[in-house]
Each structure stands twice: as structure tokens, then as C-alpha cells.
């Protein structure tokens, strides 16, 4: 118990929470897109993320490629990975209904976790770059450089996804298919093609969140599940199908955790997050910026 923080400390906690929350937000946007378009609860999002983190780890330790540069290499690979995952697995299973695809996602998560622990061992890894310990002073407040970079990355990513959905034909088709798949097909829009594109983007977003994790947190192969849960909570906070809501949900979650781990104790951070999740579900099941959840 540390009691109530002073203003400067409070500000630091707030900023830290926002920075961490941006990462939750990116993973949550991916989940939200995949759910909105295909009604698949992609619980393996966290595991895919950790896979991204290990890719960065490998590139960094084996060839000392900088994580931020490695990110550019990972992006196309994860887009392709998402495409294959949809066309090879989920497209077939999605026809059978929501539960089979949830089970498939769960199985995929377990498989990924165990493959990762075979390849990289279950030990906790970190990516320690020359600038990992760097902190920027802002008056009396210190902000971690990597966290700042990561949240910038998250904001840029969110902005790009937002522009994609609003400005491109494919993005508009994604929104159209999310709303009414049959009506979209009647206009000559292939729901399968659009779903595959959405899935790719969702997986790429998991990859980006993985890059972010690798440079800000120690991670192990099983760390992802918790992250999937956090991303789901962020989606529920923000409202399903809303990109800006998912980011906001992530930020709220990050701030809540950061505040409660300072004022109560770190062990309580998760409990506070889950309680907040329950309260949101009870009082505002559509999420804070949400539209309807009726179709679930």
C-alpha cells in the first residue's frame, strides 16, 4: 500500500498507463475487425502476438536487426500468415458456425504456445537494445523511450487502419461485409476475399503488438493468453466493431491497471481490470463508443 499519489506521480502513472494501453489497443483492433467481419472470437491473437515477439527476438539476437526495422520485415510475413490461416483453416470451419471457429482458434493458440516453447524454450526472454533503458525527462516525470516509441507506433497503426476503413474501397467493403454479408454479395463483393483481407490485417496487427511487447516486456510462450483476454476486455470497453473504441478501450484498461497497481498493489491490477470489465458489461453492454452487440 502506497497511498494516494502526488500530482506528478499521478501524471507519471497516467502516462505509463496510456503508453501500455496503446499496445492493448492495437491487439484489440485486430480482434475487433476479425469479429466484426467474420464473427470469429480469435482467442489466439495473444499467441500470434508472442510469435511476433519471438521473431523480433530472433532477428535481434541472431543478426542484431533493430526491432523497429525488424517490424518492417514482420509486417508482410504476418499479412501472408493471416491470409493462409483464413483460406486454409477458418474459411472452411466458419461455415459450421461460431463455436467450431472458437475451438479452432483455441486449438491454434495451444499449438502455437507449445511450438514456441519447443523452439525457444519456456524461459522468459527480453530484447535488450542499447536504448531500452533510455528515459526521457519531462520536468519531474521520466518516460521510457521504448514505451513512447511503441505507443507512437500504436497511434500510427490505428490511424492507418482507420484511414483504410474510411477511404479505400476494400476498407469500405470490410465495413459493408461486417454489417450485411448477403447484401455485400449481391453487389458483387466476394465475402471470402474481404474476410481473408480482414483476417490478414488482424493478424498483422497482432504482429505489431508483438513487436511492441518484445521491446517493452519480458515474455514467454504462454504470456499471450493473458494478452488475448486483455484485448477482449479492451474490445468490450470500446464497443465491438469500433476501431477508435478498441484503442480507447485499451488505453482505459492500461490506465486502470497502472493506477490500481500503484494505489493498491500490482497483484490487484488484473482483478481491478476484470471488475471494471464486469461493470461495463452490466451498465453499458454496447461498450463506451459501441454500436449494437445484438448479432452475437
Amino acid at each position, binding site marked *: 500500500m502506497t497511498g494516494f499519489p502526488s500530482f506528478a506521480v499521478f501524471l507519471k502513472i497516467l502516462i505509463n498507463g496510456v503508453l501500455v494501453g496503446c499496445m492493448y489497443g492495437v491487439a484489440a483492433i485486430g480482434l475487433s475487425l476479425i469479429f466484426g467481419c467474420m464473427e470469429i472470437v480469435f482467442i489466439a491473437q495473444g499467441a500470434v502476438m508472442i510469435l511476433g515477439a519471438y521473431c523480433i527476438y530472433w532477428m535481434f539476437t541472431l543478426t542484431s536487426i533493430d526491432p523497429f526495422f525488424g517490424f518492417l520485415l514482420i509486417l508482410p510475413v504476418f499479412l501472408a500468415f493471416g491470409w493462409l490461416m483464413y483460406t486454409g483453416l477458418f474459411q472452411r470451419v466458419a461455415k459450421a458456425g461460431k463455436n467450431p471457429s472458437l475451438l479452432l482458434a483455441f486449438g491454434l493458440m495451444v499449438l502455437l504456445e507449445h511450438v514456441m516453447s519447443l523452439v525457444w524454450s519456456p524461459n522468459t526472454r527480453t530484447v535488450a537494445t542499447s536504448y531500452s533503458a533510455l528515459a526521457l525527462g519531462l520536468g519531474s516525470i521520466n518516460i521510457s523511450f521504448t514505451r513512447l516509441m511503441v505507443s507512437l507506433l500504436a497511434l500510427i497503426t490505428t490511424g492507418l487502419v482507420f484511414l483504410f476503413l474510411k477511404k479505400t474501397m476494400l476498407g469500405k467493403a470490410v465495413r459493408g461485409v461486417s454489417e450485411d454479408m*448477403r*447484401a455485400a454479395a449481391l*453487389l458483387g463483393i466476394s465475402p471470402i476475399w474481404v474476410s481473408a483481407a480482414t483476417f490478414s490485417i488482424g493478424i498483422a496487427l497482432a504482429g505489431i503488438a508483438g513487436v511492441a511487447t518484445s521491446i517493452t516486456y519480458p515474455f514467454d510462450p504462454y504470456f499471450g493468453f493473458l494478452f488475448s483476454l486483455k484485448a477482449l476486455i479492451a474490445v468490450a470497453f470500446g464497443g465491438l466493431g469500433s476501431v477508435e473504441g478498441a484503442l480507447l478501450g485499451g488505453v482505459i484498461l492500461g490506465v486502470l491497471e497502472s493506477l490500481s497497481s500503484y494505489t493498491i498493489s500490482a497483484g490487484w491490477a488484473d482483478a481491478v481490470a476484470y471488475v471494471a470489465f464486469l461493470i461495463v458489461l452490466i451498465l453499458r453492454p454496447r461498450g463506451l463508443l459501441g*454500436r449494437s452487440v445484438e448479432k452475437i
Partner: protein
Amino acid sequence: MENHLLEVRNVDIFYGDAQAVWDVSFYVDKEKIIALVGANGAGKSTLLNAISSFNPLRKGGIFFSGKSTAKLKPEEVATMGISHVPEGRRLFSRLTVLENLELGAYPANTRPFLKESLNRAFDLFPLLRKRAHQAAGTLSGGEQQMLAIARALMARPILLMLDEPSLGLAPILVRRLFETIEALNKSGVTILLVEQNIPQTLKIADYAYVLQTGTLRMEGRGENLISDPNFQQAFLGVMRAST
């Protein structure tokens, strides 16, 4: 083979184990207005959905410009030149009017004409231009029907299929709607119209097919049907069933 634009030949359609359409045949010729009329549950929408490849056929075949659509997906039928305005319009209510229209021209073969098609849509329904940046869900019923038709026209269809476009519209709007349909037809679009509003439909239709509980009961030119005592009897039955 005859040169019908669309030919539906001896089709049986099932929903699961329940048969909805029995051995129905009809055809649509180029630049005509053809009507499918009948009460609720007569199988009209089922037939349109079968043409759009949503409902598989148990028997028979559907041919567009002489080509079978049996193996095509709905989105492939749409890109062949058939635009289907489904029952209830099914607009993307969270997308803006403009975005709805843009998606109408999504397929690669129609996208190059997007600008042109947009202007044409706005000329046809000037009100939509004013509402362009409004979410489609905020439009009134009449405006939504305009948008649904405009969206279907964005694909520059050869055949436009309208499923109960007059449903839920005020009488004055229904009259305007039928005028629009006639005008579209004069501009060269072939129309397959499904309606329960029989008197108005028969006035504009070149030829009509009357369906009852999944079977074809009668067919003929609009004016002939109206004066046919058999039709009048069935038609009165239809009126009773639909009220």
C-alpha cells in the same frame, strides 16, 4: 436456344426438407418489365434468391444470356450484370449514402465507371446528393428505397431485380416509385419486378407471372390478366391473404 435474357426452367427449390417452389418456369426478355406477383409465401422472393445463387436448385436450371448460373456464387452472378435489390432493401445502415453507392460499383468491371455512375445516380435521385454524407440508416423509408435502387444501378446492370420495392411506402411514394421503374426501363434496363401491389404492377408490366404457394398459376400480359375472371378470383384471394 431462344434468346431470352433470363430463363428459369422447371425449377424445384427446397428450404431444408420443405419444398418452397414446384416446377416453375418463366423467362425475361431484354428491355421488358416482367412481374412476378402473388401473396406472401408464394415463392417470389425464393425465386429471386435462387437467381442470385443464394438458394440451390433441387431440379431445373437458371440461364442468364444462355449461360447456366448453377455453379456461380452470388457475387459472381452479380458481376454478370444482374443487380438484385433484396426485400427490406438491406442497405449498409452505418455507412454513408455515398459509401453505399460506391460499394455498388465495387466489382472490377464496374469500378472504372464509378464517377460517371455516381453522377447518374444523383441525377436520377437528386435528394441523395443532399444526403450523401449522412448514414444510410438515418434516411426515411422512401429515401432508403431510392438509395437501394441507386446502389443496384451503380453496377450498370443488364437486369434489375426488385423485390417488393413498394413495401412500407406511402401511396404517393409508391406511385413515384413505379414511375421511376418505368423510366429506368425506357433507358434500357430490363426489370424483373416482384410485387404484392398487383394493380399498379400489372399496369407497368409487359408480362406477368402469377404464383401461388410455390407454383405458377397463370401468366399473361398485364391488361389481359386484369380482365380475366379466373385471375380476378385468384387475385381477390391474394388480396384477402395479404390483408
